């Protein structure tokens, strides 16, 4: 019994010593909380590229730590708390489901800066949010999809029914229907960000039910593999280029580029200029990249897609421009009107033409 007490006290002394060291540390410590493995080839992979870019930029002046496969919800709170206790100065929490946990932990550690991706809650002055306007990329995908489909059925693998995903579905549908009024969207919700087997199953079901274009809002490359297996089905890289499936089935992609943001925010912490803010950048600012449109896409369609990209980038065109109605037929945007960021951030309805209900 004595011995264990001794051990416990020794551990405590060591722990306190460690904490003291951590307080007086020279390096800026940046933590990352990931929802999937860094080898997912999609979402988490791109966040980790951002982390590596921070390391490359600041070298010895920063130390980065990360935890992979952190379940959304209470467990993430434990991981963040541990990071903060270990002396992290800045913590990036990179999934929507970390929203409340991030704010809860931020309340307990006012000196630690928190950056939550794709959320909208900033309950404490040390919480910022950041996201990318993926829907701009979805508009381009929708355009290509509408032109490329022969069966007029476009499959869409949804992860969770949250505004970010619904916005993507709407944006893709609006632009697909614009070039192909007969287009129909089949949407399957898989309730996971990362489960290759389930994503592959969903893709196969969509293909069996006639879809010849499959869009995904999940993180792995499994749907690409399923499309390749089936043959003749078009896909788009999601979150990362997924270029290993180019030139076909993957004909283009949405690429998230977090590196400039991560570097800027780390620098702000180092300089002491970090302030709470809400960042939502798109193609124009470079946070959303469009992967190479391959030659599997006809030249004229490619040209139109690039023109659309340019218009979205310089702000001359907004992906949600009226006239648009909601699914139930009620007016959403008048002729020429564009959606404001508040509406987009909380989007919880389909636009007119999409069938089915959003799970509540």
């Amino acid at each position: 019994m004595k011995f264990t007490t001794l051990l416990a006290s020794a551990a405590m002394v060591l722990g306190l010593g460690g904490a003291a060291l951590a307080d007086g540390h020279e390096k800026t410590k940046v933590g990352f909380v990931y929802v999937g493995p860094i080898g997912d080839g999609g979402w988490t992979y791109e966040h980790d590229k951002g982390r590596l870019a921070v390391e490359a930029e600041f070298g010895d002046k920063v130390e980065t730590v990360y935890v992979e496969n952190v379940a959304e919800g209470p467990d993430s709170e434990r991981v963040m708390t541990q990071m903060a206790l270990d002396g992290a100065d800045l913590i990036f929490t990179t999934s929507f489901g970390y929203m409340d946990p991030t704010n809860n932990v931020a309340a307990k550690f006012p000196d630690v800066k928190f950056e939550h991706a794709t959320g909208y809650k900033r309950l404490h002055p040390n919480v910022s949010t950041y996201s990318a306007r993926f829907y701009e990329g979805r508009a381009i995908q929708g355009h290509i999809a509408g032109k490329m489909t022969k069966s007029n059925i476009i499959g869409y693998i949804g992860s969770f029914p949250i505004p970010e995903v619904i916005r993507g579905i709407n944006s893709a549908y609006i632009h697909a229907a614009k070039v192909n009024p007969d287009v129909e969207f089949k949407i399957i919700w898989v309730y996971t960000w990362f489960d290759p087997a389930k994503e592959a199953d969903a893709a196969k079901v969509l293909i069996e039910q006639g879809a010849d274009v499959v869009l995904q809002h999940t993180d792995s490359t499994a749907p690409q593999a399923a499309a390749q297996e089936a043959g003749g089905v078009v896909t788009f890289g999601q979150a990362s280029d997924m270029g290993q499936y180019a030139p076909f089935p993957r004909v283009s992609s949405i690429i998230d580029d977090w590196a400039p943001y991560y570097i800027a925010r780390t620098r702000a912490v180092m300089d002491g200029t970090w302030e709470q803010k809400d960042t939502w950048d798109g193609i124009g600012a470079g946070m959303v990249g469009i992967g190479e449109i391959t030659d599997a896409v006809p030249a004229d369609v490619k040209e139109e897609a690039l023109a659309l990209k340019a218009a979205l980038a310089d702000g001359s065109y907004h992906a949600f421009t009226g006239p648009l109605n909601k699914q139930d037929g009620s007016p959403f945007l008048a002729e020429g009107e564009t959606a404001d960021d508040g509406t987009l951030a909380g989007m919880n309805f389909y636009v007119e033409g999409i069938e089915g209900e959003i799970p509540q």
Partner: protein
Amino acid sequence: MDLSAINPILLVAAMIAAATPILLAAIGELVVERAGVLNLGVEGMMITGAVCGFIITVNTGSPTVGFIAAAIGGAVLSLLFAFLTQVALANQVASGLALTLFGLGLSALMGQSYVGIKPPRTESTPLGSLADIPVIGPIVFGHDLIVYLGLAIVAATWATLKFTRAGLVLRAVGENHDAAHALGYKVKRIRTLAIMFGGACAGLGGAYISLIRVPQWTEGMTAGVGWIALALVVFASWKPWRVLLGAYLFGGITQLQLNLQGAGVAIPVEYLAMSPYIVTIIVLVILSADKSRAPGSLGRTFHASG
């Protein structure tokens, strides 16, 4: 809603593909548990099998060799568990959890240079022309060899446990290891063999995901199938045919709910998404009303001290 979009034949084929990894992992774990060992490392052994099978298939070009390698990989990893629990007498629950974590990390390391590679295709019709029979053909004869291997393992496990001396000894070890030891049976050796069998089956199940169902290598790609297999063994009351039923039920409803979503059926998606778990549990709990119970020595450490 357009139910005609669902092709029942493809649905059954997809169901079998979805059920096979769970079935393989669960039947392996069933044998382990009937020998009185609780190995929570199924997920770790599956993912290790998935990566071993993938690497070997890509390098040799032969899925058959890949599946053999997957079984060996799973069995080798399970030896670590056998060493910890049977030789070092460590706690089985902790060792099993450690095995899962270790397997996930090890597989991620091994698979690093294999991300994004397409494996050679596994031939799907070993029964040749029989698969051309309308309706029955694609449902019964149109699968790859591993599907039939899974069914054969279930039948063999059932027959071995029920009718053979080896099965009787295995069950004796699982029910009361002290008595089995007193009778002169080598408890540790039998348990180690059972653990290796479980590892090999889990490895096969994992490789089925990485080589046939998806087919690609992605870190962490088993995504919890091992845990479902573990739960299935308990709900199936440690009986082989119920494991088969449970796995097919689970796989079938998983596929059915995706198909119903695609067809736009007006059932709330949340209910569809949870239905595979609920229906499987309900059916198996009803079946287990016959007072089946866990093997008597399940999870207990054996030490030949007496």
